Each structure stands twice: as structure tokens, then as C-alpha cells.
């Protein structure tokens, strides 16, 4: 990633593409794009990666996370008139962090590993909820419709899954 940003290395960009593009395509197809649309969205997402490479900060997010957010936003731009509403990092109204984040001490890499381990350690029904949410672009109300579970059950299962994931991540990083 650094070689892409600083040296504008096309060889490094090719390696990034080889690893991430097929995964982004898999993600986009699961979340409802047909194959040609998924290929085009991958192209557009990777163009953004190339053009904004220097804005990527490895201290703030993993490459996988950054790629995911770019592909997700591209997907939303494709079907909505407005871009995804996001906070403005230069907004004078932005409330400052009250104290240094834990992540200042714990690296993005360790956090990513801890999250991966936590997903593997979650009970299957909870992990499945999270996969439904991310892979299939299901809002929690739609998960309720699809699974036939009451909305309250979906909410509490998602909260349980996320709470458990957080607990596992914190334990591993402590």
C-alpha cells in the first residue's frame, strides 16, 4: 500500500488488486450486484484506491477495512441520489476525543487479528447474523423479515453478537 501511495508503483498496485479485487467482487455479488455490475464497481473502487492512496493512514484502519468502506460507498452511490451521509472531519462541531483512544497503543493490525479471532469464536447463530448484515446488505429489520424472527429477537441477537465480539477483542488486546 505504501509503495502505491509514495512510489505510485503499478507492480504494488497489481498485488493489491490480485488480493482484494476478487474479494470485493465476491462481496458486491453477495450484496445484490450481478456479475458485470460487480466488475464495474470493483474497477471504480480500485480507481479510488489508486487516486486516494496517499490519504490512506495505516494507523487508523487496515487496508481491508479501507477497501471495504470504499466498495460499500461505491455500492451506495450506485443506487442513491445522494452519497452516504458521513460526518465531516473538518466540522467545527466535531466533538473531540476526551482522551487518547486505546487504539493509539494497540496497532490496527492487532485489532484486525483480534476481530478475526472473535468472529471465529462467536456462536454460529451470532456470527451468521453478522455475515447476513455485511454480506447481504440486510438491515436488521430485513433480517427479521427473512429469518422470520421477531424484530426484538434480531435486535437482541445482534447486540449480543456485537457485545461478545467487543468483549473478545478487548480481552485479546489487553
Amino acid at each position: 500500500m505504501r509503495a502505491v501511495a509514495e512510489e505510485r508503483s503499478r507492480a504494488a498496485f497489481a498485488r493489491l488488486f490480485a488480493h482484494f479485487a476478487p474479494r470485493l467482487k465476491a462481496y458486491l455479488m453477495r450484496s445484490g450486484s450481478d456479475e458485470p455490475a460487480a466488475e464495474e464497481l470493483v474497477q471504480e473502487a480500485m480507481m479510488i484506491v489508486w487516486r486516494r492512496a496517499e490519504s490512506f493512514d495505516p494507523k487508523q484502519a487496515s487496508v481491508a477495512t479501507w477497501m471495504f468502506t470504499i466498495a460499500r460507498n461505491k455500492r451506495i452511490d450506485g443506487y442513491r441520489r445522494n452519497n452516504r451521509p458521513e460526518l465531516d472531519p473538518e466540522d467545527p462541531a466535531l466533538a473531540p476525543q476526551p482522551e487518547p483512544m486505546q487504539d493509539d497503543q494497540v496497532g490496527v493490525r492487532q485489532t484486525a487479528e483480534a476481530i478475526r479471532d472473535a468472529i471465529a469464536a462467536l456462536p454460529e447463530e451470532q456470527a451468521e447474523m453478522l455475515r447476513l448484515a455485511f454480506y447481504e446488505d440486510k438491515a436488521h429489520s430485513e433480517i427479521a423479515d427473512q429469518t422470520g424472527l421477531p424484530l426484538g429477537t434480531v435486535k437482541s441477537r445482534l447486540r449480543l453478537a456485537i457485545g461478545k465480539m467487543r468483549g473478545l477483542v478487548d480481552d485479546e488486546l489487553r
Partner: protein
Amino acid sequence: MSAIAKRKVTVDGGGRGAPPPNHHLPDEVLLDYASGAADEGVSLLVATHLTLCPICRGRAAELDALGGELVESLPPVDLSDDAFAKLLARLDEPVSEPAVAERSGDERSGADGTGDDATLPRVLQRYVGGAVQDIAWQPLGLGVDHVELPVEGGSRAVLLRVPEGRAVPQHTHEGNEYVLVLQGGFSDAHGHFVRGDVEASDESVDHRPVADAGEACICLAVTDGPLKLTSLVGRALNRFVKL
């Protein structure tokens, strides 16, 4: 997005040294925002709260990271053979998109007339079309004003202004209602809510919020089902307001 979440900010924020909010977004709503499944109204609510709440920014960043890990762990699907060659060719194209599209959505504000406003975060100003003093309030009854914000999708997003000390008629909702305080505050049976706080209610909640004394309470209310007024006055009002 996560890159923003952990950025240290030294500007004098809307918090102005105030403690972070006490009432936060539920995890399932942050998850819908991270996955991209939240519709525009709910996304606007989340982005506005994240501006005012460093705690939820951290939680949202963690869910973005979860999305990154889940996507990276997917079985890859091969692209067409010439996909990378086509991409390289496109990199050489001059950038034809307008400059504004080159920047991420969160950086575009400021280019569209948004600026400093002690009440409305910029992401919300984009929907209002200006600062708080530019809002064309419309009376809703009982001294309460509102303005509907243009969002696509199933949710409705409304800014509400309730006079100081005034009670909103007792009501329940079909679906969920999220109320984010931007100015002033209100209390109901579930607590006291001030700037940055979110109250999430579903159809099981029948409440009667009362605005704090001191100044009008301005809130962003996002509902994914119609509101039902339950008090006697409220039932009469039901015929007139379709909030």
C-alpha cells in the same frame, strides 16, 4: 468511516469541552450504517450523532473493521481476464469527474454552502440547505415547528423545534423512532436528553417528552413508521398531523 473516527481533533468542537453524550445509538443501528444497509434518513441520523459523539465514533470504526475482516475472509471470485489491464488503461484517463466527486463524501461539505453553525453539524446542513437560522419552519400545532428533510428510502427525517418547557403530546410509533437533540434538551420517563444524545424508541414505548426550560429544543427525528398520538388531545391532533 474508521479513518475519521480516531483522528484527534483539536478544534473547539460543538462539545466545547462538554462531556460526551450519555445516550447512544443502539448497536444494530450502527451495524446497519457500517454495512451500508441503513437508508438515507437513518444514515443521516447516525452521521450527525457520530459528529457529536466520540464514543460512538470508536464503536463505528470497530464495525467498519469487522466489515473489512468479513469481506477479506470471503472466498474470492475471479475477475475477467482483462480486468486489471482495463483498470490500468482507465488510470491513464484524465480525471473527467468534477473535482467534487474526487473527494470523499465527508470532505465535500463546505463546498455547498455549509459552514460553521453551533447547532447543525455540516452533514445535516447539507440536508437543511443552510444553517439553523435559514430553516423555513412550518407550524405543526401546539407551538411545535417542523421541517421535513429530503431523504430517500423508507424513513422520514424531520427537524423539530419544541418551545421551552412544552410537552409533546403523548405518542407511540409504528416501527422505530430516533430523536437526536441538537439544541436545548428534553426529559421523559427514560431520562434527560441534551445535545448529542439519542433516544431510540419502538412501538412498545409510549412517551411524553417535555422540553427543558431555557431555550427551544431542536431535534432531528427519524422514524421508520408513522407516529401515533395516544393522549386525548393527541388523538384529536392525529387527524391533522402526519408526522
